[in-house]
């Protein structure tokens, strides 16, 4: 039994490793085709990664991506494609920043309030798509994309100085006001900068995700419904309730994705707040195969590409090289996972076939003994 697990682990690793290698080679081909040194950009990127301040950036970004990818992964396990993580994340961060700036509470309470508000707002925004799906059968893909656009407009309206936002004197930016210091999450000081404290919460949440999905009845129901909703229903699971719950959880986790940046760095929501995190989360969840450990390494990889490529243009290379590489990784991942899956399937069939043949032989031997 244990041997079988090892094989499965090897097969699981083969997918991403194959994808990475292919993406690396293809990126080099692109570089060669555009008359560039095919190796130098990678050397520059690894050089950049040896600096401790870049390492801190990578780790902080990993935390944010990890949360966004977990949010997507919760949906994936349930066969739901939550494309709205980005909108849920932005709206949650914005409203949480507003509430956080409006109140003053003792430290832990203040942080807890901001975090809870963010989760509730994220869950609410995703819940709209969930309700539409369960009551009207609207595809969550369509509704979450539209909700992203609505979130953009809603935020733009809420942040107007005549509503809830403010414009600092002399600035052309709009913010939600500064969160008082009691609402800042303590950071870990290291050489090279600060690792946002919430980054560790993010990684801890990976453990919670694994536990809930694999060690609770709820997690079993969720995976069962994801695998086959009719079969799950036949065994007594309320599939509609599971869809709604999965959307709510996905949205709540998406709401958390803004917390490392909000509580650790900006302490306000403004036009500068990072966008697109939710979409990167989809890439990462795919790459990490929805497993908490896989997602961690995928998030680390994407952050590495993001941060180490930032200086490339100062060395005469386009930083889009990293974007190309990310795109190639996604394509390569899809292809290589399919290849590995088919290989695994064939291998399993062969094994089963062998065992059956062996069993058959045994049976006939027994019969013969009779």
């Amino acid at each position: 039994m244990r041997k079988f697990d090892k094989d499965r682990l090897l097969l699981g690793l083969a997918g991403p490793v194959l994808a990475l290698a292919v993406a690396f080679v293809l990126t080099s081909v692109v570089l060669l085709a555009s008359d560039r040194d095919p190796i130098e950009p990678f050397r520059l990127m690894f050089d950049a990664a040896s600096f401790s301040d870049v390492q801190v950036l990578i780790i902080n970004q990993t935390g944010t991506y990890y949360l966004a990818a977990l949010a997507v992964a919760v949906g994936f396990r349930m066969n739901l494609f939550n494309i709205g993580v980005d909108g849920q994340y932005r709206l949650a961060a914005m409203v949480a920043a507003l509430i956080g700036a409006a109140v003053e509470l003792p430290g832990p309470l203040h942080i807890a309030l901001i975090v809870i508000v963010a989760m509730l707002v994220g869950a609410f925004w995703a819940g709209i798509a969930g309700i539409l799906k369960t009551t009207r059968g609207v595809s969550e893909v369509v509704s979450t994309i539209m909700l992203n656009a609505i979130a953009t407009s809603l935020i733009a309206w809420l942040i107007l100085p005549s509503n809830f936002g403010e414009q600092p004197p002399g600035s052309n930016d709009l913010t939600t006001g500064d969160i008082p210091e009691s609402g800042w999450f303590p950071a870990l000081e290291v050489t090279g900068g600060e690792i946002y404290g919430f980054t560790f919460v993010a990684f801890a949440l990976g453990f919670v995700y694994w536990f809930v999905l694999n060690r609770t009845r709820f997690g079993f129901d969720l995976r069962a419904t994801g695998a086959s909703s009719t079969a799950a229903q036949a065994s007594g699971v309320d599939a509609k309730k599971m869809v709604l719950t999965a959307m709510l959880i996905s949205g709540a986790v998406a709401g958390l994705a803004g917390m490392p940046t909000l509580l650790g760095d900006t302490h306000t929501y403004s036009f500068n707040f990072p966008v697109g995190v939710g979409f990167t989360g989809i890439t990462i969840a795919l790459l990490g195969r929805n497993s908490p450990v896989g997602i961690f390494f995928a998030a680390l990889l994407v952050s590495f590409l993001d941060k180490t490529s930032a200086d490339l243009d100062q060395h005469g290379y386009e930083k889009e090289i990293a974007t190309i590489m990310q795109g190639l990784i996604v394509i390569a991942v899809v292809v290589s996972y399919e290849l590995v899956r088919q290989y695994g399937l064939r291998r399993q069939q062969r094994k089963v076939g062998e065992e059956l043949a062996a069993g058959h032989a045994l049976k006939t031997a027994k019969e013969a003994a009779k």
Partner: protein
Amino acid sequence: MRRITRFATVGIASAALALSATACGKTSSDAASDSGEIKAAIAYDIGGRGDQSFNDAAYAGLSKAEKELDVKGTEAEPSDGEADADKVQRLTSLARAGNNPVIGVGFAYAPAIEKVAPKFPDTTFGLIDDSSVQGDNIANLVFNEEEGSYLAGVAAAKVSKSKTVGFIGGVETPLIKKFQAGFEQGVKDTDSSVKVLSQYLTQPPNFDGFVKPDLGKAAAQGQLDKGADVIYAAAGLAGSGAIEAASKADKWAIGVDSDQYNQKGLAAYKDNILTSVTKDVSGAVFNLIKSVKDGDPQSSEIRYGLDKSGVGLAESNPAYTKMTEVTEAVAAAKQNIIDGKIVVKTTP
């Protein structure tokens, strides 16, 4: 067994990360190089070089400095949707490479410059379009966009026959609202019977309204259909779509930021470009680099208004200069603003 293995993997991975972050004591700021030559750097706003507008104007200032002042220029582009921490990293890496001045193009760099400037007291940081962050080594390069737009409003009200003019803002930010406020006030002060149709293409954080010409074209088409015969688009690259639409309908368009009558990409429509509200970003960038080179770096707020020709109205279209009634009204309004007789609002 499997549980332990997985859990251990996570533990080892995070421990290794934490170690690598703490143990590797070298930070990228240590790699500073000192050479005699003057190096200047600009970090672009969303869109980067090639936007035929704001970023390109900054680049024009840098390349002029390269030619005339023998300065070595460096440019750095942002990534889409990046965080403040990434901007901090970019400015830090530019400053540590010995660039002086380091110029952040656009208000988005304000929080980053606030963090980086104190760490490099001998480097001058330029910040365009924002004066909320101040410091001894920070030069805030700001413009009175509303004044230039006021003049555009005067010209638009004068040439409009249908008594309807249009304003198209790229992205609904306070900065673009200054353009709208000035334009609307200029129109109303000149002829209160003229109607202004105002509209924005997108809302932040969707910055498509600065880069997608098709959005500008559709918006301009809508305003033309409503009877507008002068359209002022403050929308960066998206504005070129508005100019195209106005030109096809043989109505007037007013350009923005640089003198768009002279832009190669718009040569086909130039006869319909009445004038442009210029914003001398390139001059401001050049002046800052020059001041650093001369050993007397600019600091605190440097405001460019009509008085210093930091903003203004272009006069390259002969059709416009021939309309003496219009140019006289504009000149009178300009003098009144400089003298303080007219105060232009910054919010609509």
